[in-house]
């Protein structure tokens, strides 16, 4: 059975985030009322529920908060990608996001390591995934 890997489908709320990635830029929201940085994109601030959220360009750099080395695929889609290096990145602005790690030896993965974005243009699709590598 062939499985096409699931890709994100942008919504009206998240469109600026995904569009920025296709330009190899990282944009996340900041609350105009409480200044909280927000990830993932929302219509309301998770700190104060304000609807006044502004898109801001950031470096996308951060540190490794934790990681998974999945030796069995987490779902059939990734059977060809084991071990999957699934990571939690803490952005320098504070929010955490889920990504995968590239260009790294398993033994070099350390909680706290500095990370920078890798813009993964999915071939044949108008979508770019935000992956990470060591800074």
């Amino acid at each position, binding site marked *: 059975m062939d*499985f096409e*890997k*699931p*890709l*994100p*489908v*942008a*919504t009206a709320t*998240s469109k600026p985030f995904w569009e920025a990635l296709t330009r190899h830029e990282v944009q996340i929201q900041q609350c105009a009322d409480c200044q909280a940085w927000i990830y*993932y994109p929302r219509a309301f601030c998770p700190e104060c529920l304000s609807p006044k959220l502004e898109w801001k360009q950031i470096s996308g750099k951060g540190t490794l*908060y*934790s*990681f*998974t*080395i*999945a*030796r*069995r*695929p*987490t*779902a*059939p*889609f*990734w059977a060809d*990608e084991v071990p*999957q290096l*699934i990571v*939690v990145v803490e952005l320098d602005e504070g929010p*955490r*996001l*889920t*990504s*995968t790690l590239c260009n790294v030896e398993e033994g070099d993965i350390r*909680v*706290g390591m500095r990370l920078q974005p890798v813009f993964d243009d999915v071939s044949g699709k108008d979508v770019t*995934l935000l992956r990470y590598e060591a800074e």
Partner: protein
Amino acid sequence: MGLQGTAAIVGIAELKPEKKPTGPEMFSIEQWAQLARLALLDAGLRPGDVNGLVTSAVMESAMFAPATVAEYLGMEVDYAEHVDLGGATAAGMIWRAASAIELGIADVVVCALPGAMTPQPPDAPPAMDGWLYGASSNAYGSPQAEFEIPYGNIAQNSGYSQIANRYGEEFGYDPRALAKIAVDQRTNACANPEALFYGKPLTIDDVLNSPMIADPLHMLEIVMPVSGGAAVVLASREKAAQTPHRPVWLSGFGERLAFKTPTYAADLVRTPIGPAADTAFGMAGVSREDIDMVSIYDCYTIAVLLAIEDAGFCGKGEGMDFINAHDLTFEGDFPCNTHGGQLSFGQTGMAGGLSHVTEGARQIMGRAAGNQMARCDTVFVSGNGGIMSEQVALILRGD
């Protein structure tokens, strides 16, 4: 604040966990009826005594689950609830039922969780979504569909592995201590003929030599879903007086939900069971030292470690030393999951969470098998939904 402890578990039913079901396939509502029947028989109560029911999802109806169940059972009830807390559903059902009883809304409430596969239509392909996406939602607009699933952050192993790796960074990691949890629980299962792994002893080396699934989690530290089902009947003090077993009073509970995907946890290694347990102990007016047995939701060994620490049975970061220093078996000085836990009793789908409640009740009622503790009056039960994200704590007590 909270419960007075005047609602009790008075009847339990639990199907023997099986890797391959030997009985005929039944729909969820049929399993519900079977489990309710057995639990009411155990309590010596009649279907006509029931005026409350608590269910989770039933496979045959995406909506109106409580009414669907009530109609199928032929019951008109004054209290019905649909609980949706993943692995914490079972424990969440118990406090809701007890609260309804203490409020006087109902005096006999059945909570049931079918845990067996249901029949598929004869000429339709099986639905794939549950298998492909597990507990993650791939619906349009779901944060998981957009920000987790495309990166493969799906199912439970990934999140628990992230927890374990973060824990290791902050506190160090002793694989043998984690393996000992599975081993001590297996010793319990070997004294419990109902357990899936009865008669199959386990060593720490067996655990550590089992395949690495997601570092540092080995296969034998991870539950395997099997077939089964369980139900519990709760009753008011007046009704409980008419039942045959030692009543198991719910004297305290706490609940805390914090996130869906652990990426967004405020702190991956300080989990919501902490505040839930504090509420439960405060309500019950008992201390950690009063607990005779802990019945901790054990989808992974690391989940048990974190619950022991965060629920306050030892200090933060001291869990591995605590496990090495204590005997977690039914004859030990810190009995934990005396039925074998889901790791060794079997994770019977959603009913696996209820096994922690039924085992607490069994020990207090004095009805366990070879794994019966010499004395058990007070039990701490935890329910854990998602990836340490939904937590329920219960304190069960015998008179």
